[in-house]
């Protein structure tokens, strides 16, 4: 190093960056490299292997005679891990040896003990358990006795001397996890968003438990999240960052400069205010890990929300972004909240009662073209008609039985309506439907065809013939059967469109009726006919005997049993129908506004309740006016129902009070809507909220304003707008397979209802 020497003839080059070195005062230093070094953050953790050289397996075996060392598993920033076995307990374990302390640190042993004890207390299925911990003096000094209780012997930490004395080796004996870590899974490309959604809640559980016990991990990263062969998630290296305290290069620094963890996963406060770090830093790290699992990238700088990078539910964006808030106060305050939100999302997007695998299935079914299904249906129908043509053309008797005819007509009309709805709805519904639905949509029409155009006429014909030949037989069942079929067909066809499951159930009971009792009825009828023929023959042979006028007892009882069964089945069908529609029927109309409109201002999935109200309004739109029969009493108009009070003044006072009160409420609502709008506008400017969210927030605000004014038409119009926006959104998402059929239906329904309401309000105004 020649200071002050100037070399004019040959400027030197910097060995690192190749730039020309200035001569002069900077004495052989490269300014560019110096600047780089200056810009380097104190917290940079080098990705290359640390200079910590782990002991060999033999050395470790020597140091830990109580263990059987099976091999070396790996090393990282937090130490080296060995696979081991505890012969005394006959179980596998992992031995982790922490980096040696190069400089003496008197507080280390005490800190280590304290932290290790806290870790050993953690007992959770998703946290790697600590069996033992302690410090061994590496080669030279005798090995301290193993302490099963995990209390390390009171070793003063052996300072390293200038000649390289042997420091104490802190170690942990932990649960052995037979699996891989998240980083390995990501690299192998085996992490899909669905798996990510199953892993994160387990991490939440582990973290929440640890936080409740007062332990903060501080170093959550994919390398620390293990997944075993059974798919269980286990978090490792809890609190090790705190024990080691500093730069994993095993350098002890006094005073400030404390840093821990991998920079990308660290919360901002870990870098800027290390002393104020609390459990919320783990939440930030979880957010980073989550984002990386979903998108494969780190959320650096101005990053895109996950839904814009991969096909995941848009509402997951909120969860991830909320976890990634820079200020701890703005983040989730508890890890369990993350899990709760994820569960809400999972239960909201999916049709109730289905597993989280459903959206994938729905997407798969998206490929089903409705054309083959319809073709199959019509082909089957044609075949059935052809097969039974003789029945149709040969027997004209069935027209004679009035009840049969009536049942047939009623059933036939409903059957036609069902097919019309299916015809209209099938293209939409097959876009993303479930196998059960597909089965229902096909099964019911096909079977019904056979039912009503073949079986029932046959039955009716048979009974007619019987009646004709044996007028003395009390053929009572025809009426019952006819009514039963009429009711059944109404129920089946009304429910079939939206509750194919329930409709199938009703249908099955009818199948029972038919296949079990029909042959029985016919057999009985035949037996009766034979018996009376025989009786007639006998009577013809012996004219003195009086003719048998009463039916055989057995025959009568058979009819009674059959009648009872039919009644029972009908009753059962009605019960099933009631069960299917119960939530809708019990929903009493509220005092104001459209009763069946799902509230449009709420972002996110409408409540499950509204799903069940769907059929009543669908049928109103598609089939006829029976919807109104299923509705409760007419929804009231804008103001609450007024009784005729005895004293008009009291009610007037009460009413003005109510009016004033509701005005206050309306004003408050407007205020809230304004604040909400500002929040969303701010978010939208930084790219965290979408423009359609901003639109919706604006409309919500406008709605609140219109409600305050009392302008019902305006309110209805704005609400309609909101539902249009939602519907548009859902349409887009269904096209890319990101929303289930149910959401589509709900959104469409909401839109239709809002449109109807708007129309109604307009008509009210013009009256």
């Amino acid at each position: 190093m020649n200071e002050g020497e100037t070399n004019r003839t040959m400027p030197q080059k910097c060995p690192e960056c190749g730039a020309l070195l200035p001569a002069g005062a900077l004495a052989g230093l490269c300014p560019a490299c110096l600047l780089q070094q200056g810009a380097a953050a104190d917290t940079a953790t080098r990705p290359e292997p640390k200079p910590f050289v782990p002991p060999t397996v033999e050395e470790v075996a020597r140091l830990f005679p109580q263990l059987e060392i099976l091999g070396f598993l790996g090393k990282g920033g937090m130490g080296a891990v060995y696979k081991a076995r505890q012969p005394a307990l006959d179980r596998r374990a992992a031995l982790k040896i922490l980096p040696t302390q190069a400089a003496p640190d008197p507080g280390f042993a005490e800190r280590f003990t304290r932290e290790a004890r806290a870790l050993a207390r953690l007992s959770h299925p998703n946290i790697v358990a600590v069996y033992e911990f302690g410090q061994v003096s590496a080669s030279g000094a005798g090995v301290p006795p193993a302490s099963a209780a995990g209390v390390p012997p009171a070793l003063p930490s052996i300072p390293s001397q200038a000649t390289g004395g042997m420091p104490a080796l802190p170690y942990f004996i932990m649960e052995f996890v037979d699996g891989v870590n998240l980083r390995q899974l990501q690299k192998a490309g085996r992490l899909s968003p669905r798996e990510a959604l199953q892993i994160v809640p387990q991490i939440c559980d582990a973290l929440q438990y640890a936080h409740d016990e007062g332990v903060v991990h501080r170093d959550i990263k994919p390398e620390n999240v293990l997944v075993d062969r059974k798919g269980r998630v286990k978090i490792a290296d809890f609190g090790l960052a705190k024990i080691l305290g500093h730069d994993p290069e095993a350098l002890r620094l006094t005073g400030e400069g404390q840093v821990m963890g991998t920079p990308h996963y660290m919360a901002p406060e870990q870098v800027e205010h290390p002393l104020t770090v609390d459990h919320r830093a783990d939440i930030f790290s979880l957010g980073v890990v989550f984002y990386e699992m979903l998108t494969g990238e780190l959320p650096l700088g101005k990053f895109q929300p996950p839904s814009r990078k991969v096909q995941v539910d848009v509402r997951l964006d909120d969860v991830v972004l909320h976890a990634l808030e820079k200020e701890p106060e703005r983040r989730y305050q508890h890890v369990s909240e993350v899990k709760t939100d994820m569960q809400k999302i999972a239960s909201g997007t999916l049709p109730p009662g289905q597993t989280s695998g459903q959206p994938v299935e729905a997407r798969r079914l998206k490929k089903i073209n409705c054309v083959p299904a319809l073709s199959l249906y019509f082909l089957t129908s044609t075949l059935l008609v052809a097969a039974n043509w003789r029945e149709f053309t040969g027997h004209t008797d069935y027209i004679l039985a009035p009840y049969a005819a009536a049942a047939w007509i009623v059933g036939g009309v409903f059957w036609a309506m069902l097919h019309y709805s299916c015809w209209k709805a099938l293209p939409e519904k097959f876009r993303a439907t479930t196998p059960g639905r597909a089965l229902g949509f096909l099964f019911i029409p096909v079977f019904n065809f056979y039912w009503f155009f073949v079986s029932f006429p046959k039955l009716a014909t048979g009974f007619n013939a019987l009646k004709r030949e044996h007028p003395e037989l009390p053929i009572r069942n025809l009426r019952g059967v006819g009514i039963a079929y009429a009711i059944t067909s109404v129920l089946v066809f009304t429910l079939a469109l939206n509750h194919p499951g329930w409709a199938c159930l009703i249908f099955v009971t009818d199948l029972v009726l038919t296949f079990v009792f029909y042959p029985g009825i016919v057999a009985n009828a035949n037996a009766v006919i034979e018996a009376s023929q025989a009786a007639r023959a006998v009577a013809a042979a012996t004219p003195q005997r009086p003719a048998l006028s009463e039916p055989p007892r057995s025959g009568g009882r058979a009819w009674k049993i059959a009648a009872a069964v039919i009644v029972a089945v009908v009753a059962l069908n009605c019960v099933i129908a009631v069960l299917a529609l119960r939530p809708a029927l019990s929903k009493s109309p509220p005092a104001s506004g459209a009763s069946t409109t799902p509230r449009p201002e709420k972002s996110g999935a409408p409540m499950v309740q509204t799903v069940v109200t769907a059929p009543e309004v669908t049928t109103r739109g598609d089939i006829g006016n029976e919807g109104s029969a299923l509705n409760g009493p007419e929804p009231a108009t804008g103001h609450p129902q007024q009784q005729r009070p005895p004293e008009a003044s009291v009610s007037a006072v009460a009413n003005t009070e109510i009016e004033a009160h509701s005005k206050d409420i309306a004003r408050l609502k407007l205020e809230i809507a304004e604040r909400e709008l500002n929040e969303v506008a701010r978010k939208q400017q930084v790219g965290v909220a979408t423009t359609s969210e901003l639109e919706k927030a604006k409309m919500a605000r406008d709605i609140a304003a219109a409600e305050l004014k009392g302008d019902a038409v305006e309110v209805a119009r704005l609400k309609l707008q909101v539902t249009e926006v939602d519907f548009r959104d859902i349409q887009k998402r269904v096209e890319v397979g990101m929303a289930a059929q149910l959401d589509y239906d709900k959104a469409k329904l909401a839109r239709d209802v809002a449109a109807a309401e708007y129309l109604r309000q307009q008509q009210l105004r013009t009256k």
Partner: protein
Amino acid sequence: MRDVFATTHWTVVLAAGRGGTPQADRALGELCRAYWFPLYAYVRRQGHPKEDAEDLTQGFFARFLERNYLEGLSSEKGRFRAFLLAAVKHFLANEHDRAGRQKRGGGVAALSLDWQDADTRYQIDPADQLSPDKLYDRAWAMTLLEQVITRLRAECAADGKARVFEQLKPFLMAGKSDIPYAQAAASLGLNEGAVRVAVHRLRKRYRELLRQEIAQTLSDPAQIEEELRALFRAFTD
């Protein structure tokens, strides 16, 4: 860090504003004393011969120290470096109109600048192809680094670690992991672990000093990174 910032030179100057205070004068004086060379280099690079550059530089500082420039150029006020550059450009543009080339003196205490040294430094800088702006930035960076290194050296010397500093100085640069710790350890008579610690400490201190120096010329701590980047860019054309 915020408290430190309240008392950096530039914030003091800005805070004083038009009125001026003795502290502001002193602060400004400090800044100018530190960073006059880049300015001179810029003026030279503009094509003025040695004597003219000297005159101009001196004249500019005389004007500048009278705080005549502090009112305008508000967009540059966050950073002293940029502000100074804008001010000298403004000055040169005005000077161009004036015919005379009188020596300006008097008024506020003139800076006694070492013209000879400046000339030498200007000559030896291997940067012939650079634009004046870039040359200015580079010279600024070098001046800055020189100050930091000088302070660092002084600190180490005060601790009795002058030799250590000299040996470990090369490790200050952004190095890869293959730093020859062993060699340094041998020549210093320390073990490797101690060398690592020492290097780390040195680097850390260097960074702190660097940031402090930069901070003196800024009004907002958030701009340190940006300033560093800007200075780095001067070397990476």
